């Protein structure tokens, strides 16, 4: 019962905070062997890829994960002081908004230009697509014939009442899908379609993989998910009973989004950031499990790289690349539309 015991309190507190302070990346100076990445990509899909990058280049990757929108908000708030060198998100719209707000810098790199087709990168070179994901229709083959399926719009038909699973409006996948529809169909027609979906009383599940499991268990007959969730489920279980249907093949093509990255406007480790992007656009396109695209069954952006055998099995498709540049400008409109239409 002496006074010294109470000195433990301020000492422990100060120590705890000091250790936290020291463990943070020094944000004021560039470091030779580090690159700081804000990433919205799923946990587990990136660690192996970055480990491989570090092995080959000796550059250590520091990750901070959050959703695309949260990372954008954070980048805005931090402005010039952001510790992030690379902004790596899973949505073209978010990249476009970040670029337009001056948060990303143009990168002149011949490696990136040759590796990535022009329609999958920013014309002003502020962001680069690194893998493609197709948001399409999936179905239970025991309950639905592929001939019954055609377009996203057709899912507004009454015959799908009580048979749909959908991702909630809070998720960027839903928002960009609706933005692509606004780009193609106009706002009025899109709202009609979304109201039709809502009238069909879909089951909202905020996880593409759980949506697939729910279809497999027999609840929903049809849903809209990203193609690679089916690929990943098939990788675990070759008999997984949910099939992929490429939407809108007779008109604009299936909706395509990218996971892509840009270098932040004031990146302290700019050279390392460029190296990382170049590596991801070339070596990282490997169809193996350590590849950015292959590891997650996404389609590579680099035409010289092959997709995995599993997703090749989904068959050829036509993709709607034309509306991709409009996701960013149309997202705000898409959110308001979803809210008006009563989409959860």
């Amino acid at each position, binding site marked *: *019962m002496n*006074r010294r*015991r*109470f000195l433990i*309190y*301020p000492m*422990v*507190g*100060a120590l*705890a*905070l000091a*250790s*936290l302070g020291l*463990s*943070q*990346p020094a*944000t*004021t100076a560039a470091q030779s062997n580090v690159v*700081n990445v804000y990433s919205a990509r*799923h*946990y*587990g899909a990136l*660690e*192996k890829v970055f480990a491989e990058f570090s092995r080959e280049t000796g550059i250590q990757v*520091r*990750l*901070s*994960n*959050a*959703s695309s*929108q*949260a990372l*954008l*908000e*954070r980048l805005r*708030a*931090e402005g*010039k*002081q*952001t*510790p992030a060198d690379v902004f790596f998100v899973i949505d073209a719209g978010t990249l476009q908004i970040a670029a337009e707000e001056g948060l990303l810098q143009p990168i002149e790199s011949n490696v990136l230009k040759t590796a990535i087709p022009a329609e999958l990168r920013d014309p002003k070179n502020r962001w680069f697509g690194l893998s493609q994901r197709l948001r399409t229709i999936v179905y239970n083959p025991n309950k639905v014939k592929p001939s019954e399926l055609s377009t996203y719009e057709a899912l507004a038909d009454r015959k799908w009442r009580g048979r749909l699973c959908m991702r909630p409006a*809070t998720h960027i996948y839903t928002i960009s899908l609706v933005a692509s529809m606004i780009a193609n169909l106009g706002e009025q027609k899109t709202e009609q379609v979304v109201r039709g979906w809502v009238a069909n009383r879909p089951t*909202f*599940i*905020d*996880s593409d*993989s*759980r949506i697939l*499991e*729910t279809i*497999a*268990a*027999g*609840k929903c007959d049809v849903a809209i998910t990203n193609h690679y969730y089916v690929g990943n489920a098939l990788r675990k279980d070759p008999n997984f009973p949910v099939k992929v249907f490429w939407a809108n093949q007779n008109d604009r093509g299936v909706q395509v989004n990218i996971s892509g990255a840009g270098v932040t406007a004031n990146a302290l480790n700019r050279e390392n950031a460029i190296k990382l992007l170049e590596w991801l656009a070339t070596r990282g396109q490997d169809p193996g499990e350590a590849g950015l695209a292959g590891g997650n069954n996404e389609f590579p952006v680099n035409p010289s790289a092959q997709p995995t055998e599993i997703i090749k099995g989904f068959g050829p498709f036509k993709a709607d690349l034309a509306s991709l540049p409009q996701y960013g400008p149309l997202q*705000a409109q898409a*959110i*308001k539309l979803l*809210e*008006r239409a009563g989409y*959860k």
Partner: protein
Amino acid sequence: MLPAILVLLPTLGLTLAWLRLEGGAWLHLWNTLLPEMLLNTALLMLGVGTVTLVMGSSLAWLVTTYDFPGVRTIEWLLVLPMAIPGYILGYVFMALFDYAGPFQTQLRAWFGPPFELPEFRSLPGAVLVLSLSLYPYVYLLARTGFREQSAAQRDAARVHGYGRWGAFFKLALPLARPSLAAGTALVLMETLTDFAVVRYFNTVTLSEGVVRLWIGQMDRDAAVQLSSLLMFIALSVVLVERYLRRRARYYQLGSQSRPIARVRLSGWRAIAASALPLALLMLAFGLPMIQLVSWAIAEVAVAEPGTLDAVFGPYLLNTIGLSAGAACLVSAVALVMAYATRAYGPPSAARARARLLARTATLGYAMPGAVVALGVLLLLAPLNEAVLNLTGGALLLSGSLIGLMYAYLVRFLAIGFGNIEASLEKVTPTMEMAARSLGAGPLRVLGRVHLPLIRTGIFAASLLIFVDTFKELPATMFLRPFGMETLSVWTYMLASESAWQAAAVPSLVIVLSSAIATLLLMRLSWSGTNSQMHAGLEARL
């Protein structure tokens, strides 16, 4: 009273946001989500409030009034579900009980495929999860409330012809009203804070709306306005509770000389009395733990060697560091505040003002985490510019440790202040007078007289703050510095992607540490002569 003012600033900032009210944004909100948000928030509060009140008070009545096999163990175990935060219990339940989950799959196997339960991802699902993780607040306070009642009072009721049930409804329940109100108010505040469970369960509420607008739609102004609305609701919960408590306090002054003897149950009644709470515990704690452990084992088995501890180690250290930092900082500020406002000397206007200010400052606990985070961010944004210019960009305030610690201070000061104030009040002023008359200065009195006497209170306060920071999700998520993942943020991120197996490892660490801390706190309070836990929990208000 600098600390008090500091703590109040972020909330004031939010209130000021009403001054630049934008009609357009409100109109859109009102035409779309706002009515649903308000309705869902009201229904959620009503549902969770009612269920926890009924569950908590009847369980407390059961363990304080009756004697049945295992009653003493059950009495302890019933607080354990508190150790599983809603954002963990929520995803475990979703995985277990939704359509694709094992429970319904089994039911379909038994009763045929058309068999289907109502959609689990819904408001009732959220009510179930929140109630199971929050009822211990009511239970703990109700238990203390019932125990403080004297046997004499109850005997008198029996003599006047009331049966045991009559005595419960006419006497015990009204007498325990202050405790029940306090417990329910705590539950309602936690319910208001939650944005994770309601999001899992597709239920748009005000808290979820703040996150939706702020992060999902990057509309910070609308988020600020919505969160000020949320703030007023939280405030009214506190005010109603304080009003209920004040009116009823005087009933509690009855003597407690003779504790109430438990009524021994036998036969099927005894079995039912043991089985019901145990079944509840199985659902709220046992089942989720089994699921978490089996996921964690599977995860460890498939993880690449080294990757798990490479990620996990730093996150754990971050969490411990933040929690220890917050515990020390908040306890220190609380000690200063409690010492400054302690009952010593004749009442004066200045001290009354200080006490009022302190009471107001502790309202921060009622503020939902997302609201506090927004408030801190708003406050620090202009300050941030100034500091950046001064230090040449060396120090980044918002999104830094300082901002985060500030948010913890706002949110948890009440816990620290209440505990420490409660123990300071038990130090009689005469002791201090004696020390002062023997020539000791105020600092020496604090060091030699007060601190040794109230160290249990300080310890309990620090432990509570430590655990609450350990579990805290919203403020940590929005304000943490670059790359500083914590276990709670990591858990939520994985769980919201349905990477349940991977989320199990950090979840288990959170649950086990808060279970240990909870049991430790109960040991401190239940073994002591006074009900420290009661004070500690009440202190959150």
